[in-house]
C-alpha cells in the first residue's frame, strides 16, 4: 500500500535539497539560468521581494501561468508562495503540482491569527521563523521544512543572522535543560512540549533548517551555512545583481565549499555589482516583512 504525503515523504524532499541554493525566479529564462548554475530548486514568483517592496499594495500568490511555464522549463523542484493563512491559495498550488509551498511573510498575510493547517496537504510546506518558538509552532502545524526569515528584499544579512542565531541558541539551551524544566520551557517558547522534548533528544530541529532573507554574496551564503543553515534561499540577491549567471554559480559554490575560503575568494572575484542594499533603519516598522506571522 503506497503511503503518499506522510511526514516522512515530505521531509524526504527537504533532505534532498540540503547543501544547496533555492533561487527566486520570475520567468522561464531566469529558471533556466538558475538550474544551469546548479540551483537545487526554484521559487516561482510574479515579483521578487525587492520589487514587491517597491510595488506596494497587496502581494498575492503568483499567476498560475508563471508557475506552469517555469514547471515546463526545469526538471528541478519548483516551489511557490502562498499568503500566510490563505489555505485556498495553497490548495490551488497543490493542484498545480508545485513541489513545495512556502507559506510566506513576503506576501501580504490573509489571516493574522491562524497559519495554515499543513497536515491536511500532501504537498510539503516550508515556513519562516525568527526564533525557536516560532519554528516549533510551524512544525506543530505540519511544516516539513523551516527557514529563518531574515528581511526579504533588502540584500542585508543582519536579520538572517539574528534569526539563525536565535534558533541555534534556543536549541542549545533546550539541549542543556533537565527533563523537569522542559514543560516550563515550552510554555516560555509557546510551543508544544512533545516537540520541545524531541528537540532536546535530537539536539536539532526535527525537520531541516534553511536560511532566507538577505543573502547577496557568496560570503553571505558561507556565513549562513556556518551558522547552521543546511541550505540557503536567495531571493532578490541574484536577479537584482548586475551579472546573475555568474553570481548564481558563485553562491552555489560557496554553499558546497562553505569552509574553503580560497575557493570562496576565487568565485567572489569580479562578480560585478551586488543588489543595492537597504539599511534596516530605513524601513519603517510596518513595512518590515519578518514581523508578519507569529
Amino acid at each position, binding site marked *: 500500500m503506497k503511503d503518499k504525503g*506522510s511526514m516522512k515523504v515530505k521531509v524526504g524532499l527537504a*533532505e534532498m535539497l540540503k547543501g544547496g541554493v533555492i533561487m527566486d525566479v520570475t520567468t522561464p529564462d531566469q529558471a533556466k539560468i538558475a538550474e544551469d548554475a546548479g*540551483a537545487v530548486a526554484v521559487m516561482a514568483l510574479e515579483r521578487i521581494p525587492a520589487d514587491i517592496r517597491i510595488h506596494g499594495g497587496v502581494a498575492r500568490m503568483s499567476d498560475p501561468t508563471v508557475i506552469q511555464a517555469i514547471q515546463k522549463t526545469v526538471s528541478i523542484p519548483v516551489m511557490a508562495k502562498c499568503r500566510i493563512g490563505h489555505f485556498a491559495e495553497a490548495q490551488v498550488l497543490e493542484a498545480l*503540482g508545485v513541489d*513545495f509551498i512556502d507559506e510566506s511573510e513576503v506576501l501580504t498575510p490573509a489571516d493574522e491569527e491562524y497559519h495554515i493547517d499543513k497536515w491536511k496537504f500532501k504537498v*510539503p510546506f516550508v515556513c519562516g521563523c525568527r526564533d525557536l518558538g516560532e519554528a516549533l509552532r510551524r512544525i506543530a502545524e505540519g511544516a516539513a521544512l523551516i527557514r529563518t526569515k531574515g528581511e526579504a528584499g533588502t540584500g542585508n544579512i543582519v536579520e538572517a543572522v539574528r534569526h539563525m542565531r536565535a534558533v541555534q541558541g534556543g536549541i542549545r539551551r533546550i539541549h542543556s535543560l533537565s527533563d523537569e524544566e522542559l514543560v516550563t520551557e515550552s510554555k516560555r517558547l509557546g510551543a508544544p512540549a512533545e516537540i520541545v522534548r524531541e528537540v532536546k533528544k535530537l539536539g536539532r530541529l526535527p525537520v531541516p533548517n534553511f536560511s532566507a532573507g538577505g543573502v547577496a554574496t557568496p560570503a553571505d551564503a558561507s556565513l549562513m551555512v556556518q551558522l547552521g543553515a543546511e541550505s540557503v534561499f536567495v531571493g532578490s540577491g541574484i536577479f537584482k545583481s548586475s551579472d546573475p549567471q555568474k553570481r548564481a554559480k558563485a553562491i552555489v559554490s560557496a554553499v*558546497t565549499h562553505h569552509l574553503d575560503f580560497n575557493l570562496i575568494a576565487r568565485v567572489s572575484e569580479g562578480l560585478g555589482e551586488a543588489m543595492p542594499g537597504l539599511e534596516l533603519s530605513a524601513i519603517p516598522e510596518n513595512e518590515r516583512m519578518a514581523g508578519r506571522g507569529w
Partner: protein
Amino acid sequence: MRIGVLAVQGDYAKHHSMLLQMGLKTRLVRTDADLAGCDALIIPGGESTTMTTVMQKHGLWQPVIEFGRQKPIMGTCAGLILLATEVPDHGLPTLGLLDVAVIRNAYGRQVDSFVDQVTLDLNGKLNKYTGVFIRAPKISRSGANVKILGYHQQDIVMVETEHILACTFHPELTEDDAIHRYFHTKTSKLIGC
C-alpha cells in the same frame, strides 16, 4: 577500509551517520584529495543537475569516473542517475559507470512521492524492505552484465555490477542498514579485507 560519501549536495549527512552508526570509517568527499583516501564511495540522493554542475566545476568529475572503474560505488536516487550510461532528456553528461537507462522523476512530482515495500534479493535471500521514493527515477533498461536485485511491483528498483550498486529509493532515510551492510560486504570482497 574507508567509505567516502560524496558531499557536494544532497542528503549525504544521512549516509554518513548511518556508516558511523555501523562503526565504519567514513569521510565526506568534496575534493579530489578527499576521494584519494577512500576504498569505496557513496553518491547520495539530491538534485542530479546540481551535483553534476558542482562536480564538473570543481574538478571532481573525472576523478570519480576513474575511481569507479576500479573501486565500488553505491548510488541512491540522484546517485543512480549520475552513474547511468543513458538518461533521456537530461541534457548533461553522466559518469557512465552503470549500463542502465534511467528516466528522471518517473513517478511524477512531489505529491506522487511515496513510501512502500520493495522486495530485494540480497545474497540469494528475498527480503522485504521499506522503500522511500522521493521524486524517484525508474530504470527502463538494464544491460547484459547488470544484475537485478530488487523490484517494486513491476519496476526494477535496485541493481548491481561487479563494482556498482544502485537503487532508485533512499535506504539512508530509513533505520534499516541492510543495504549499507550489503555494500560494505561487497567492498570487502573486492578489496580483499
